[in-house]
């Protein structure tokens, strides 16, 4: 099965004789020649990905001031860096927001990192923890990347093998790490390089392991040379991840780009490319994986839970086409809906990464490394977090009414049951509106006669499986004090009021 070794490939690279292709090119080669002949002929397949990688950051050693300082509270352009390290070491994380709440996520840790790579001056302000050997209280200087000893990028989670795609069932727009998701499934957003993705091209689905990538693999990272440290956090193939490192001083701002996901957070778009040595036929075959071969689940991000409802399964080819047809439930009706798809990562840039790495290898500037060990164990352990759902606090059957009752009858119901909210339902028990005691008072003052004249029709609702925390947020956002609870067919099954929530949270203190 073994046909060649990395050592042999490196000898070819040094002589300028290696055959290097990108993963996209490899698809055609394997299609036309077959995997065995491709394995004979091709030495290296380059891969690439370019997307938001929030779990990224940089260790910086600033060098000692005089008199020396043991920095504890550290800010770079007003973005806090972690200072619980030795005296002038710090870690600036990409997702850290600005200390100034008016700036917040518009200029965060990622933006500091990009500015450093661009050679810009950055303001360092730090407060010291004074000791006998580090007597200085404070330091405030302007620095550039050239002024620091080391700026070592260490990214705990990068290079996701596959991303779930996202859509939104809610009646409102939501703002997520997958961008802005429109109401009622009106768009689907996806991420990831698909057939160009490093981990996808190196994956063995039978053993859930990777053919060549492991600890010590040399990689393209942000325009410089980097290395795989090991598996990234939340590594769980086929949702594999990598922990990587590189030298910020070698990097190119073209491949290290700060961004702000609207109303979500700062993030760093990172370009990563990994060369895959084509050591045998099996590896060659996997390097020819296509967008249509990679399954992508689409989840409903409008559901504020850890496990979101699966709306559909698709693949990268469909997603890249720009549109997709979904079968969804809207207001209790099954609907087939064709909507736009949009990427939130850049395939164009991923191509450029793979192409750049290919050129480095052809120019003899980049040699491959043998991994010293495979990536570590997959783990998927949810946090042990308590949760209270709406159904946990529903007690009495709901009091509802039909819209054909009189206002006087509605008033009597509110008084009799000592409630302030009365959901109005149709003959099937489906919610069509709601009236409150305030609506009754207004009706009397304005001489209104019928329920339909006074009821609110656009009702904010909750679901039995919805966290109570989220209902509280909705009440506050819309300035309401009661929310009918409906099932999937919009039948009223209960009601949650601000009194219920106060009682619940009061008990938790």
């Amino acid at each position, binding site marked *: 099965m073994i046909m060649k070794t990395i050592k042999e490939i490196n000898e070819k690279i040094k002589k300028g004789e290696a055959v290097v292709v990108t993963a996209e090119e490899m698809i055609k080669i394997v299609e036309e020649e077959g995997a065995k002949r491709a394995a004979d002929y091709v030495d290296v397949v380059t891969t690439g990905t370019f997307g938001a990688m929030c779990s990224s950051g940089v260790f910086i050693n600033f060098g000692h001031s005089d008199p020396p300082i043991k920095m504890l509270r550290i800010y770079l352009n007003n973005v806090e860096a972690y200072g619980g390290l030795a005296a002038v070491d710090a870690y600036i994380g990409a997702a850290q927001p600005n200390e100034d709440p008016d700036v917040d996520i518009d200029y965060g840790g990622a933006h500091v990192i990009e500015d450093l790579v661009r050679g810009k001056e950055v303001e360092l302000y730090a407060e010291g923890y004074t000791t006998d050997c580090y007597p200085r209280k404070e330091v405030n200087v302007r620095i550039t990347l050239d002024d620091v000893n080391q700026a070592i990028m260490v990214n705990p989670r990068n290079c996701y093998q596959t991303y779930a795609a996202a859509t939104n069932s809610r009646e409102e727009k939501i703002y997520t790490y997958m961008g802005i998701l*429109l109401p009622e499934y*009106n*768009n689907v957003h996806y991420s990831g390089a698909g057939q160009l993705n490093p981990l996808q091209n190196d994956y063995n689905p039978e053993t859930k392991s990777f053919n060549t990538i492991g600890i010590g693999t040399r990689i393209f990272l942000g325009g410089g040379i980097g290395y795989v440290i090991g598996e990234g956090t939340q590594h769980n193939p086929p949702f594999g991840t990598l922990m990587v490192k590189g030298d910020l001083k070698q990097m190119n701002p073209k491949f290290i780009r700060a961004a702000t996901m*609207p109303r979500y957070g700062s*993030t760093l*778009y990172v370009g990563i490319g990994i060369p895959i040595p084509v050591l045998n036929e099996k590896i060659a075959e996997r390097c020819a994986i296509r967008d249509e071969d990679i399954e992508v689940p689409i989840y409903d991000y409008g559901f504020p839970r850890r496990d979101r409802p699966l709306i559909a399964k698709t693949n990268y080819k469909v997603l890249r086409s*720009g549109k997709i047809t979904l079968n969804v439930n809207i207001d209790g009706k099954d609907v087939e809906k064709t909507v736009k*798809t*949009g990427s939130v990562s850049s395939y*164009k840039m991923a191509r450029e990464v793979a192409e750049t790495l290919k050129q480095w290898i052809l120019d003899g500037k980049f040699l491959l490394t043998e991994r010293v060990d495979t990536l570590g164990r997959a783990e998927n352990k949810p946090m042990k977090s308590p949760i209270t759902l709406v159904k946990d606090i529903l007690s009495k059957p709901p009091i509802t009414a039909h819209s054909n009752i009189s206002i006087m009858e509605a008033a009597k119901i509110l008084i009799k049951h000592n409630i302030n909210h009365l959901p109005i339902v149709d003959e099937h028990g489906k919610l069509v509106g709601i009236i409150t005691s305030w609506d009754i008072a207004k009706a009397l003052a304005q001489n209104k006669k019928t329920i339909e004249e006074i009821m609110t029709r656009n009702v904010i609702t909750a679901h039995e499986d919805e966290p109570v925390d989220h209902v509280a947020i909705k009440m506050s956002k819309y300035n309401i004090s009661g929310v009918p609870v409906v099932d999937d067919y919009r039948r009223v099954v209960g009601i949650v009021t601000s009194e219920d929530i106060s009682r619940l949270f009061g008990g938790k203190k």
Partner: protein
Amino acid sequence: MRKRVYYWTDSEHINKPVISDTILNTGVKINILKAKVEPQEAFLILELFGSKETIEKALNYLSKFGEVEEISKVIKRDLEKCVHCGCCITQCPINVIYMDEDYNVVFKEEDCVGCKNCLKACPFKAIEIFE
């Protein structure tokens, strides 16, 4: 000739077929790009097709029943900042933005009505709209 306008219908004319009457009385062709109708007000984005004289006649006619504002906004993208991620594509209500075969994000600038949805969605702040 083509012209795009914002149009607010006065409340007293909200239930009248103003658009149909404009078409019948002036011969202009009208495409309704966006409509937001509420009890007190209607807001529309209209696209008018016809000769210069016809469009002018149509605008005068529309002005009798509401307020017309020409759309003279220009959308501009900073290609230094843009990485062609595609976050903006699904945000455009009139499909001005798409991804081409080489995975470039492409703007049909001439069709833009300046709603700013793409501007708000861009993680790199690469989109500007001049008014």
